[in-house]
């Protein structure tokens, strides 16, 4: 009870909810919704693609690199729920996958610069994690599988498609962070 009061007092001292937090919620919320909708409608229906790319994977890595692991963890959970709600059936396991990606970025990307090259390097282990996740999903929901068939039929096309379409996502996240970062930098200068 006293802890709650101290949090409220602290919040009041700081002038209530920070505007950049609201901005971040709105921007990341919209980004999550648009990416999930694009995955389940546009990309899932394109017949020329070998598989539907996992754009949220790229968004989570980019946010972890450009805005911090805390933001990325929250986007991972919210994004996972949204992706499963729009394009999944049954249990919602994607938040666990994306959180695993954030942890991977945290472990491997600790000493990396926030650059596109780091993003590409971190995308590779994340794709491996995604493939493991898909494999477990197939094993749980489809039943009997042959590894070779799943590798060529699902895992490889999915990895290639995700790798290609995740590259622009890095720059999209960068663009989305501009209003937040600008404000923060201006405040720091003052």
């Amino acid at each position: 009870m006293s802890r709650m009061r101290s949090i409220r007092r602290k919040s009041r001292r700081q002038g209530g909810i920070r505007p950049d937090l609201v901005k971040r919620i709105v921007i990341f919320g919209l980004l999550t919704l648009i990416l999930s909708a694009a995955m389940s409608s546009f990309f899932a229906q394109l017949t020329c693609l070998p598989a539907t790319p996992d754009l949220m994977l790229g968004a989570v890595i980019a946010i972890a690199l450009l805005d911090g692991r805390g933001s990325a963890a929250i986007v991972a959970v919210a994004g996972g729920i949204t992706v499963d709600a729009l394009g999944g059936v049954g249990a919602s396991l994607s938040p666990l996958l994306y959180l695993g990606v954030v942890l991977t970025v945290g472990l491997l990307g600790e000493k990396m610069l926030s650059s596109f090259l780091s993003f590409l390097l971190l995308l590779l282990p994340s794709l491996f994690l995604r493939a493991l996740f898909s494999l477990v999903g197939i094993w749980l929901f489809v039943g009997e599988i042959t590894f070779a068939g799943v590798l060529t039929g699902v895992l490889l096309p999915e990895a290639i498609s995700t790798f290609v379409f995740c590259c622009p996502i890095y720059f999209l996240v960068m663009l989305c962070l501009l209003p937040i970062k600008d404000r923060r930098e201006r405040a720091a200068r003052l």
Partner: protein
Amino acid sequence: MRLEKIRVLIICGIVALAIAIVTALFAVIGFTGPVRGILKTVAKPLEWCGTQVANAVNGFSEVFTDYDRLAQENEELREELAALKEQVQDDTVLREENTWLKEHLEIADTSAGLRLTEARVISRAIDNYSTVLTLNRGTVHGVKVNMPVLTPDGVFGYVKEAGLDWCKVVSLLETVSSIGAYTDRTGALGVVQGDLALRDEGLCLMTYIDKNADLRIGDRVYTKGGEESNYPPDLLIGEIVSIEADDSGLVVRIKPAVDVSRIDTVSRLMIICGYASEG
């Protein structure tokens, strides 16, 4: 600062785990969580836009990727047109109209008493290993879980999840799908099931067939119906494309009448919300 980051990660981890467990329990009891329903409804316009753009792109890319098929189809249509021109000129308009109407009323003709709700595709599953479609009809339109879904060509699958104004439909190529069936020529009974190995070829299996059953390639397979089945009787599932025998009995491959891979927003899907013998 570092401690705070770890705390955020731990909280997110617990939330993610709780979501996984709760949604798994919901899936077992066949309940759709409110969050999923709300998100699906909110994202529906976005998904609709995405699907329209995808259709436009597909239509454009088809010109290059499916050139041979389109050329052949074009040739066939030319021949068909020439044949039609030979027919009595006065009947042409009426004949075309009749054919079109017949195609759409075929189901009602053969299986009288079906209560159908027309639906359109708004999105697809993103997991790359299941053919699950989201349709623009839900519980407000009278749609319930396990209701069969058809196209004018035949059976497509069944409703797996139903939300307020959307539902998720599983195709008969999926391993979770099984339909009691019979063949038209000899009435041999069996169960049509999805099979992972055959799914990419757009085929499914007919199992539990009597070893001495008289089957031939080209035999048509229909739904058997009955009290334990969600499907009404006499709906076309597909036709037999191969018959093999192994230790467990006959292995029969079925080519569904509906080409699942070619279902898009233009396709007309119909959900059977009830039928006469159901009462």
